[in-house]
């Protein structure tokens, strides 16, 4: 009985390590890692072959590579490292280029083929028979009785589970992990804020692989044997079920799910009597049950028993006590909106930034208004037979708002995508502050201060409003992976950032919702979050794709005011917009596009007088 309970406990602890690794890949990084079990298997095989002696031992009854007699705990370390390296390799191949459901597919295929390869090439790990007689750390604990060994081993597994939990905690809850979760929620939006999504995901995937490898090593050192039948691809599915049941993205939920699934189904049924039409009926029905549980959970409670919780941020006391009082007075929105029309300008949305004493990473708004911030020359883009954009040329001067208008299908959004770097250009070049950025991907342009928003609402729905803004930080320390384990480097800056984010939220009247998940906001509120988030990056050039789309008409005026104050604070804005009234009130210079090319430019009043513009607009 001790043996049974001890073994159960050890399996639970080991499964917990694996599930935390998978949760890092799936729940936190958003990678559907259907081949996860391969990393566990890799860890197990590595631990086995470095623990064992050369394969000529024991009469040479099994064939394998390696055989080094490494002492405990080196095999566990080696397993983690090799599995991590394998995950990095798979990550580099799979995560770089493929759409996400393709990634899942390829990883599943990898898992199935990996089993076939190991079974086929028997010289690697003894084929389908597998490697047996792996001496566990028991060898070093021989003077303990076997029951004592079980508890000792369980304690060792517990230590590693605690370590895995700690790693997972630090990685997920750091600013780096926040960027990762943002990328999970909306990849394009994350790269538009300067996040190198692929890099983030590959690192997270690798850490998940390390945890998988360690779990494999723990298993093989306990069981003493490892064969392909133990790591068929459905085993990954059991871990997925555990995560889905417990709560995707919630560490405690993952542990709970592991407990429920591994124990209740995997082990609990050993007490059931054998029945059914075939000897494998029982084992088969376990799988059917696991599948059914997954379907039921995904249908009725996809977030799991313990859903991912919103991270709450304490509001910095300074902002509460001192500034919010005066702000409330001077930032009364209704008054401000009317004021602006009369006084020309006050209340810029960017004021907090310009008075901020230390914006070291930020791009201070250009000192000399009139400098050319953006110049695009002869940009073209072809989709199949359609020339979506044809040698478009446009310019934006510092501190101005440039409008881009035109009928549906004129190529405005494509052009904006090209400027932001999310769409490549077939020809032409793009200069930002005189620097050629044509070849740079979106996240690198964002780091140069070219930040965009999207036509469809692109908040990070499972992050709070506050977190959405914090993702906008471009501070180096806030974005480094090392920072996960080196909290001091970012904690102080985080306080400053929260302060800044809070000020922005107050001005867009969302401070009261800062702890709400952004996915629960209204259309207009999401827009404001998106704009505020873009401002958090301290952009030089802001590319806005229809910021009034999906906004309640009553609130459009509000957005308009914010846009104008952004421009007045010195940020250059390129505005793609359908509502000409908005363009009229906000923009200085306007470009008209039709059928992929830039037709004309000037003030809206000038453009209204031009025949060709009118005909393009009304007939096109």
């Amino acid at each position: 009985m001790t043996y049974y309970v001890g073994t159960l406990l050890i399996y639970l602890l080991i499964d917990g390590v694996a599930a935390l690794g998978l949760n890092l890949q799936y729940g936190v990084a958003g990678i559907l890692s259907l081949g996860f079990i391969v990393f566990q298997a890799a860890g197990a095989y590595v631990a086995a072959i470095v623990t064992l002696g050369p394969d000529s031992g024991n009469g040479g009854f099994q064939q394998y590579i390696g055989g080094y007699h490494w002492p405990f705990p080196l095999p566990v370390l080696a397993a983690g490292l090799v599995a991590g390296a394998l995950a990095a390799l798979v990550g580099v191949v799979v995560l770089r280029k493929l759409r996400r459901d393709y990634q899942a597919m390829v990883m599943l295929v990898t898992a199935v083929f990996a089993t076939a390869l190991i079974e086929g090439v028997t010289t690697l790990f003894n084929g389908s028979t597998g490697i047996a007689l792996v001496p566990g750390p028991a060898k070093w604990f021989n003077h303990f009785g076997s029951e004592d060994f079980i508890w000792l081993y369980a304690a060792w597994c517990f230590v590693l589970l605690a370590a895995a939990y700690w790693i997972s905690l630090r990685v997920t809850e750091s600013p780096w992990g926040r960027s990762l979760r943002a990328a999970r929620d909306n990849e394009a939006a994350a790269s538009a804020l300067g996040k190198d999504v692929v890099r983030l995901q590959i690192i997270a995937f690798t850490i998940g692989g390390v945890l998988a490898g360690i779990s494999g090593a723990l298993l093989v050192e306990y069981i003493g044997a490892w064969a392909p039948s133990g790591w068929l691809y459905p085993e990954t599915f059991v871990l997925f079920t555990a995560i889905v049941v417990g709560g995707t993205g919630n560490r405690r939920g993952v542990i709970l799910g592991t407990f429920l699934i591994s124990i209740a189904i995997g082990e609990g049924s050993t007490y059931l009597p054998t029945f059914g039409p075939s000897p494998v009926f029982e084992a088969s029905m376990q799988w059917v049950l696991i599948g059914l549980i997954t379907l039921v959970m995904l249908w009725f409670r996809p977030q799991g028993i313990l859903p991912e919780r919103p991270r709450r941020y304490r509001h910095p006391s300074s902002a509460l006590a001192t500034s919010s009082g005066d702000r409330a007075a001077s930032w009364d929105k209704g008054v401000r909106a009317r004021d602006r029309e009369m006084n020309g300008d006050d209340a810029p949305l960017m004021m907090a930034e310009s008075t901020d004493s230390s914006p070291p990473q930020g791009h201070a708004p250009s000192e000399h208004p009139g400098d050319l911030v953006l110049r695009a020359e002869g940009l073209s883009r072809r989709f199949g037979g359609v020339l979506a954009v044809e040698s478009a040329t446009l310019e934006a001067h510092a501190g101005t708002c440039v409008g881009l208008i035109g009928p549906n299908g004129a190529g405005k959004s494509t052009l904006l995508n090209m400027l932001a770097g999310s769409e490549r250009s077939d020809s032409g070049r793009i200069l930002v502050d005189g620097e050629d950025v044509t070849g740079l991907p979106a996240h690198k342009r964002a780091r140069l201060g070219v930040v965009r928003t999207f036509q469809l609402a692109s908040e990070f729905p499972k992050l709070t409003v506050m977190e959405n803004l914090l993702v906008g930080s471009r501070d180096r320390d806030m974005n480094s992976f090392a920072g996960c384990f080196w909290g001091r480097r970012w904690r102080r800056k985080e306080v400053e950032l929260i302060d800044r984010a809070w000020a922005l939220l107050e001005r867009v009247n969302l401070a009261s919702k800062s702890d709400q998940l952004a996915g629960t906001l209204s259309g207009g509120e999401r827009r404001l979050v998106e704009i505020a988030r873009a401002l958090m990056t301290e952009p030089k050039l802001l590319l806005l794709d229809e910021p009034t789309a999906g906004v309640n008409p009553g609130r459009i005026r509000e957005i308009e005011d914010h846009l104008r104050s952004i421009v007045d604070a010195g940020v250059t804005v390129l505005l793609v917009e359908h509502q000409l009234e908005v363009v009229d009130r906000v923009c200085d210079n306007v470009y008209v596009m039709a059928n992929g090319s830039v037709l004309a430019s000037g003030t809206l009043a000038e453009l209204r007088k031009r025949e060709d513009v009118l005909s393009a607009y009304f007939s096109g």
Partner: protein
Amino acid sequence: MQIYYQAFGFGIVTAALLAVGAVGFTLQFAVSNVFNLAYGSVMVVAMYAAYVSLNHGAGLWGALAVGGITGSVLSYLINRLVYRHFVRKQANRFTIVLVTLAVALMMANLLEGIVGDNFFSYQLPTQIAYAFGPFRFTNYETIIVGVAVVAMVAVQALLRGTKLGSAMRATAENSDLAGNCGVPTDRMEDIAWLISGFLCGLAGVSLALTIGQFTPTTGNVFLVTIIAAAVVGGVGRPVGAILGALIVGVSEEIVAVPASEYQVVVGFALLILVLLLRPQGILGTAQVRSG
């Protein structure tokens, strides 16, 4: 050299049944945007249905028909009863993939629970071999290739040459737009699943004929080879699936001559190669991650 000709001949047979399977798989993806991982399980159920029908006196053609119809009905039901609801409820691709995997495991294990994990094989008259130039095919292999060619031509003719086919292609291209233009997209989807399910069943029975013996887990490895073929050719493109099947099928058999232990991973190697060089597949259009 003779042995390579022989291998090439085998390759053609493998390619034929891979093509049937891959076209069905890719059709489901094209129309419903679902990577149906339960495809392999449906295939295995069809194999067993054909087995039962053979034991009840149906001939080879009868068994093929029973397999096809089983695949057809089962695929239709899975889509109607499970997938469609999840797709409608939320467009999250991950959820759908997990759902298809859940269905795959449930179905394969339900089957295994009933028939057990023993090997089965079809009881058929002995094979007769024919020589075609340097190649040799048995009568069953000839039938498999013939059925595959007819099925591929029929699917192409349907998709390219009929009104139904263009409605289906429109649904695959842009379901919302097709719906707005008056195409009954739900019915198109149903028909696509019936057809692709039939192909799935045919591929299953052909596979069982070729490999001789099978178990409820036979579908797994074959499904990933099908996926490899479909991705190599360009997912969502029936012609691409045929091309991918030819490349994967023939290379597998050729590689098997000098190094049979690596035969199973040929599909995988090709898959990775194509993903590195041309992620959208040989005939595919942009399915690459953006940004």
